């Protein structure tokens, strides 16, 4: 009985601690991604992903409500973060400079950041909902020079709605 009890207790403890670890791990991951967004992305793409097109100098397009960010696989976003987007790879209207590359030292968990861009960042903060970016068609020009796996889907009704 005692052995049975102890083994059950041990199993329950392991299960609970496993859940706890998973939960804290997920929370830590969110925090890290948000932190790295502010550290590496916000200076060009805005504190809440609204872009800096209305600022001078304009440095980056909106990521919140961005069809590429919403529709593209996280692996593609991770690739863009790792390699940047300069020269012919730049797909947005040319108001913005080249996007620099961020190596593993600058963004260790690139998939976590890519996932953050596709999920948390797309949820407009309540306090800034009124100032959510209006994503225009010209911000999503599909250029033939971009590889097929980089091509942007035209804004759908769903993605149009995200930014409003």
């Amino acid at each position, binding site marked *: 009985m005692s052995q049975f009890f102890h083994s059950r207790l041990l199993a329950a403890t392991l299960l609970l601690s496993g859940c706890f670890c998973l939960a804290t791990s997920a929370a830590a991951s969110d925090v890290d991604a948000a932190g790295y967004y502010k550290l590496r992305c916000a*200076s060009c793409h805005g504190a809440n992903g609204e872009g800096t097109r209305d600022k*001078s100098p304009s440095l980056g397009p909106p990521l919140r409500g961005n069809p590429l960010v919403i529709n593209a696989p996280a692996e593609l976003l991770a690739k863009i973060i790792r390699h940047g987007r300069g020269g012919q790879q730049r797909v947005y209207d040319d108001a913005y400079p080249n996007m620099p590359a961020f190596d593993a030292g600058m963004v260790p968990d690139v998939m976590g950041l890519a996932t953050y861009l596709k999920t948390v960042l797309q949820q407009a903060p309540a306090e800034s909902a009124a100032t959510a970016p209006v994503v225009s068609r010209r911000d999503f020009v599909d250029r033939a020079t971009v590889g097929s796996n980089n091509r942007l889907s035209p804004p759908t009704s769903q993605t149009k709605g995200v930014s409003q």
Partner: protein
Amino acid sequence: MIAVIKRILVVAGLMLGLQLGFTSDAEAVPAFARQTGMNCNSCHIGTYYIVPNFTRTGRLFAMRGYQVPYVRERLHAEGDTGNNNEQDKYGGDYLALNWTEFFSARLISEIARGGDDASGKSLDTRSSPLNRMALFFTGAITDWLGIWTEIGYLGNNSLRSVTPGRQNEQTGVNFFAYDEYRINASWDFGKNSFFGFSMGNEHPNVGPQFQYPLPLPDLWSNGQGGVGRSMDMANLSAFLFYNDRWYLQVAGVTGADNTNWSDGNNFYANVSYDWFRKTRNDLWLIAEYYAGNDFPSIMTRTKDSFLCPANCPPGVTDQNLSISNTPGDIIVNAPIEQVKDFDSFRLSLEHSAADRGSHTWYAAATVLTMTQNFESGAKVQDTQMGAYLRYFYQRTYGLEVFVRDHLKYEYTTPVGLKRDTYTKPNYGITLLWYPAMNVDFWLSFSPRVQNIVFDDQRDLYNDKASSFVLGFEYNL
């Protein structure tokens, strides 16, 4: 001369071969790059020999005083900013940036310099390992305030003369001096608009960086800090960038060679318009006006050296220093005149296209005219025009060419006699190689180094001199 050029071409070929050993995607991170996270190419179209031609992003960044939106977000993301985030109370968030992020340095070496003297005879080929060096401390102080400061060092032989027969002289001095200082305050108002104020020790058109490219005609930029050809000056500016298109600036300037407001002063105004407004296609039309009563004569050498106004070091004289504070082009045997007042206009077009496929370029053309009325009743009018192109293939291999000429350069004596001048167009060509965006090698030719003479004294004209430089520049 031909043998020297052959040797240089061999060296250039070797450098090209060495490129196989370089990676072409190195990240250059001088101060602004370190602060903003952007690379050099975001703001510059080459930085060859202290001429930082700008993309649209870079020009706006400079215009507003080196602040970009949301840098504060980055600071806070890095943790405690040093004031426990009580920014409203204490400010100073930018102290959280490492001081090295504000620090930059530049080194320029002349691997080989040579050419012909005024008689057409080949000069010795020289090397100047430490030709120029500069230390910079620059960047945002707050979200609305930024600073640019430069301390420069000029090595021996760096202040070469352009006087025929003296292009290759050693100056005999090495010195450090405070060079440039500029502080800008700017605030956003509305969409893509900002306004601000600045002060500094250069001509006011340095604020929006419209004084570049340097090879174009420029009769104004005489005066900045203590390094180079110029003496100290002061300007106070107010500026406005409106609706992503219009740039307006007005400024008061002490004079072209002093910081004294009471002995006369000058006024500067700038109205510029930006078309297209794209990184790949940006076209500025710049109209500038500069007038006042505190300016040296553009046709005479007013002073050879401010480094040793009284007693020069042994072996150094004003003449062999060959520094001139003359902002224009001196005329051989021109009479010394005292400027009573002057008017000048400059109209420029500047086009930049960054990373248009494999091609990147910066092209500019300008027309500038200045009329100086002298105390004696005489006057001089100088109208110049010039064109300039800097082109890069894959941001690695570049070519820079310029041509400029005097359309009219005429002196009118106190009794009304007009004396025209004679000179030919100036031009130059430079080959550039950027193995990394913060490192460049160049090979430049000035096939014609000439003087300007009165038309009635053409026998004094000489254009047999020439020069070439193989150089290296490193920005840290």
